[in-house]
């Protein structure tokens, strides 16, 4: 039965969670510039988060680029404008689909892994043990993951974009479009700010998905079942937040265009 008291409790919990998120995010971000830097943990996380997601991003980029080109060519053919396919694929992939798809893939693959790993450490008291040993757990567990993701996701996005361009070109060749014609339309469709947008988005997404995964993981309770629930929650939440933020970042760049 609906009650104001329950709504009030729900709202309080929501805002408390929101506050905790920003507090953790701020602490993790400021610690990027503080010692100890935990280079070894950073390298391990970069390998886990970045290289392990490379193949899935390559596949996603290739097939998305191919399907984008295919659909664009069908639409452009009646107007004898198939030569513009390169520019269309570039705009769609570099500004929108590349960053979003790479972030969603990484979120599903790595975000859930971060949450599960930290959640398991919480429920097996490893996090408490670290705290007792005098470790700042944000510096040790969150910041290396954040740094690794801030570097890995933009790189993965660039690779996804590049592979999708290649995929688009493979389809374009079947319509008799050569490499020069394919590439020449990039400059007609894209301005330097668009390339910047393609880099800013993965940076923001990397920050958000890492912080959501870490916060959800560190707040895990309730044993193995709790870890599974936390991983699921982290993936759903970060996916929704990525899609919402994509719109707002795009809106900001539209203003400055």
């Amino acid at each position, binding site marked *: 039965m609906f009650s104001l008291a329950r709504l009030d409790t729900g709202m309080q919990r929501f805002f408390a969670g929101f506050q905790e998120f920003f507090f953790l995010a701020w602490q993790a971000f400021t610690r990027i510039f503080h010692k*100890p830097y935990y280079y070894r943990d950073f390298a391990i996380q970069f390998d886990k988060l970045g290289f392990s997601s490379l193949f899935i991003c390559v596949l996603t980029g290739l097939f998305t680029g191919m399907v984008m080109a295919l659909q664009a060519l069908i639409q452009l053919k009646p107007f004898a404008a198939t030569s513009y396919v390169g520019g269309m694929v570039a705009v769609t992939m570099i500004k929108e689909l590349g960053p979003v798809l790479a972030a969603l893939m990484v979120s599903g693959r790595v975000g859930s892994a971060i949450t599960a790993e930290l959640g398991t450490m919480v429920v*097996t*008291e*490893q996090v*408490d*043990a*670290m*705290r*007792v*040993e*005098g*470790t*700042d757990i944000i510096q040790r567990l969150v910041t290396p993951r954040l740094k690794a993701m801030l570097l890995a996701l933009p790189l993965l996005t660039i690779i996804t974009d590049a592979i999708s361009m290649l995929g688009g070109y493979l389809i374009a060749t079947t319509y008799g479009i050569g490499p020069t014609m394919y590439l020449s339309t990039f400059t007609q469709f894209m301005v330097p700010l668009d390339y910047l947008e393609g880099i800013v988005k993965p940076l923001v997404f990397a920050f958000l998905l890492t912080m959501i995964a870490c916060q959800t993981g560190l707040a895990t309770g309730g044993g193995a079942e709790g870890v599974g629930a936390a991983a699921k929650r982290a993936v759903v939440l970060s996916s929704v937040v990525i899609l919402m933020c994509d719109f707002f970042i795009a809106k900001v760049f539209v203003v400055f265009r």
Partner: protein
Amino acid sequence: MSWTDEPCIRMEKVCYTVGGRTILSDFDLVLEQGVNRTILGVSGSGKTTILKLLLGLIHPQHGSICINGLEITGKPEAAYREQRKKIAIVFQGGALFDSMTVGENVGYRLFEEGRLSQGKIEEIVREKLRFVGVEPALDLYPAELSGGMKKRVAIARALAADPEYIFFDEPTTGLDPIGVYNIISLMRRLQEAGKTTLMVTHDLATAFATSQRFSLIHESRLAFEGTEAELRACPLPNVQEFLQPTVASLFV
């Protein structure tokens, strides 16, 4: 910052509630240096919560907790991190870091502090592992160890930074009789070496074998505090029920 001359860990009038459920109510405890104590109580009575409160891992809603005179209640972790280094804990499941080898686990705090050379840390790690009798496991990962070995490695990790107090959370739970005997022997050797131990358990045999003073927690409150003889002679029904549970108590 308030300081007293007497080195001890003190908990006064502590109330701790989670999700509307009272875990501790007006709970008092003093752990003097050199006096080994056991907190007794049935499962779920709040024994582990007491250890976490004393370590500042969680904070009470009311009351005061001091480590060697320094009030830690309500303060940020960084304010009492140094003071907390005087305490080590052996968690119930060991809580070994599963991404690190046994050696890295034991030397964790020393590596973190960065004050000693790599060679010196390795020497200390080997010495502590030798003390608990698991030196051959130096390069193994926690997943490759038995339950008893994990507990012994956890004790070695607790000893590595030479703490004044060592807390034990149900150290003998889930171990076979030989494992229990090994843990009791280790605890006695630690006490002989001048360490003060605080154990929480419901295992009376281990408690009587390792402690001089006992606290019994019942329904969120301190039901008893005293020596073994006083505990056995205590006429309170709750205490006697804990010491000699009857079949009828199973159905209460």
